[in-house]
């Protein structure tokens, strides 16, 4: 069991590995210190690195992210936690106007090497203000890199790249995946930003997924296999840079595309994937593309209602059948 780690523990492991190799990496956020984070994703960091590198903050999202930005411009690599991704709205000015623009609007005079980590997505019954998948919010803004890992190994490998990046990175950790387990990667494990992964090869349809929906897509692929439908599952891993080369190559093989997104259908990331595939790969397609995304409603509380709104295996299977039978 020593070689297995949870997605939750992978977060602190990924941060700790970078803090050991680079003394300029410093963490700040609400309850991240002795408390270890409300999701225990920073457990052990305070004990190992102490109060000079792990800083508890007040409930001040603007101060957290704004201070991280000021520190990033002056020689520190801050890792800021925004407890729930819904709370990004409280400091949205920094994500929309300040952090992604300052390098550009100063003509390249400053660099902002920071990571904003945040717990994203549904599945835990926290209701409309603590369960949304908001990765598409970040996707509306040029100048942010966007990461959303699906496995513990990717959490560690992508955390290494995110913290080492000289660009600002928004790192979405999925709440529904925290308890999941996977292999513990070796000490030097680094996953480059912007490299999608074909997590299941297949011939008949390409499923493009991210974070939680990678697992939904894989479950759907298992079910479809029993009916003789071979689905290829692409884990996008990052929204920016977006690895459309891997997506187009997969569609070139399967001729069919279904995106599986937890963010709402309206302006969800799948729309960008689909628009590029249709634009650059129209001749590759043998069927219309389908997007399985969350419904365009606020996320409801009750499990039965949430299932109506978010992507489920059944919805993915139905979408795949519709394009395979086209």
């Amino acid at each position: 069991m020593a070689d297995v780690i949870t997605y939750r523990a992978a977060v602190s492991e990924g941060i700790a590995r970078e803090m050991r190799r680079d003394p300029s990496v410093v963490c700040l956020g609400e309850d991240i210190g002795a408390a270890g984070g409300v999701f225990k994703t920073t457990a052990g960091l305070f004990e190992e690195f102490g109060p000079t590198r792990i800083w508890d903050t007040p409930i001040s999202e603007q101060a957290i992210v704004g201070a991280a930005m000021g520190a990033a411009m002056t020689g520190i690599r801050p890792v800021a936690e925004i407890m729930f991704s819904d709370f990004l709205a409280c400091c949205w000015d920094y994500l929309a106007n300040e952090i992604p623009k300052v390098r550009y609007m100063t003509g390249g005079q400053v660099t902002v090497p920071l990571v904003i980590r945040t717990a994203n997505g549904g599945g835990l019954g926290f209701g409309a203000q603590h369960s949304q998948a908001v990765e598409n919010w970040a996707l509306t803004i040029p100048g942010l890199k966007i990461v959303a890992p699906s496995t513990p190994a990717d959490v560690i490998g992508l955390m290494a790249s995110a913290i080492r990046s000289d660009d600002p990175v928004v790192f979405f950790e999925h709440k529904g995946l925290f308890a999941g387990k996977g292999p513990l990667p070796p000490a030097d494990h680094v996953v480059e930003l912007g490299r999608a992964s074909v997590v299941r090869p297949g011939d008949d349809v390409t499923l493009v997924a991210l974070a939680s929906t990678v697992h939904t897509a894989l479950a759907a692929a298992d079910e479809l296999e029993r009916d003789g439908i071979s689905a290829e599952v692409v884990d996008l891993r990052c929204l920016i840079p977006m690895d459309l080369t891997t997506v187009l190559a997969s569609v070139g093989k399967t001729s069919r595309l279904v995106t599986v997104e937890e963010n709402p259908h309206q302006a969800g990331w799948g729309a960008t994937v689909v628009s590029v595939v249709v634009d650059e790969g129209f001749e590759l397609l043998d069927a219309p593309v389908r997007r399985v995304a969350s419904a365009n409603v606020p996320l409801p509380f009750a499990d039965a209602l949430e299932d109506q709104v978010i992507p489920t295996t059944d919805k993915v299977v139905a979408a795949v059948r519709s394009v395979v039978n086209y």
Partner: protein
Amino acid sequence: MSETTELLDLYERMAVIRRTEKAAYDMFLAGLVKGTTHLASGHEAVAVGASAALRPDDYVFATYRGHHHALARGATPEACLAELMQKSTGLCKAKGGSMHLTHAEGNMLGSYAIVGAHLPMAVGAAWSARLRGTEQVALAFFGDGATNIGAFHEALNLAAVWKLPVVFVCENNLYMEYTPIGAVTAVDRPAADRAPAYRMPAQVVDGNDVVLVREAVAAAVDRARAGDGPTVIEAETYRHYGHSRTDPATYRPAEEVERWLKHDPIDVARARLEALGVAPDEISVVDERATSTVAAAIAAAKAAPDADVAEAFTDVWADGGAQWRM
């Protein structure tokens, strides 16, 4: 440096700012400056006095009314005017404009046009200085209007809780855009009266007297550098033009305008020089030098090539490029 020599230097810096702002005003009317400008004529003593109290490696964060701050921290009039005129030699390669003048070489880390957003950044730069053990201080200039936005309060609280080396310098020019600050603020002194809530010392100072500003900021900088935490300085001043280009400032009572114009920061400095025994001719030499400095800057900016269109696609990322996909 003798007191006289030093004051002559501060006087010249203010004179150069005044002439640069006048040039921006005139060239806007001539169609050579586009967009908008928020001129700082009348505010010169705050920028110059505060900057005189800083070390060259201290950090400065400013606002969209920030020409004087950039100039006071070493940006050249030519680079500032070239930026306003959309020239390739502009301070930010013509990608920032009037509201985003930045001179990172002088640790003047930007002018920000979302009110109050830079205050947490200054806190972060001060935190960074603490982490790196450099004894640098971060100074944020802001307007009276910024004292009613959340980021101001989050920044003051965090700076106080972490006892960071920050100096918050409010340029209280009595109006938040077109509205008297007193009409929309629950306290008499918009910045200074808020400081006690954060157990922070505050000082109200005549912002049109460069010597008094320098003394007040120097005391705050000493406190900060000694590890005694942040200070609020509220510098009372007055803008000679409207809020921005479209504002003739007719909402200001004539007698108020007249009173403040009689208390022009450049006249105040001149009176101090005369009291020190400096001959009018000697001051005239400085005035003429400031005039010729800015005249040369105007000529050079006019002669410079227009913005390089290729620059539209540089400086998004730290690698210099703008690639968003693979």
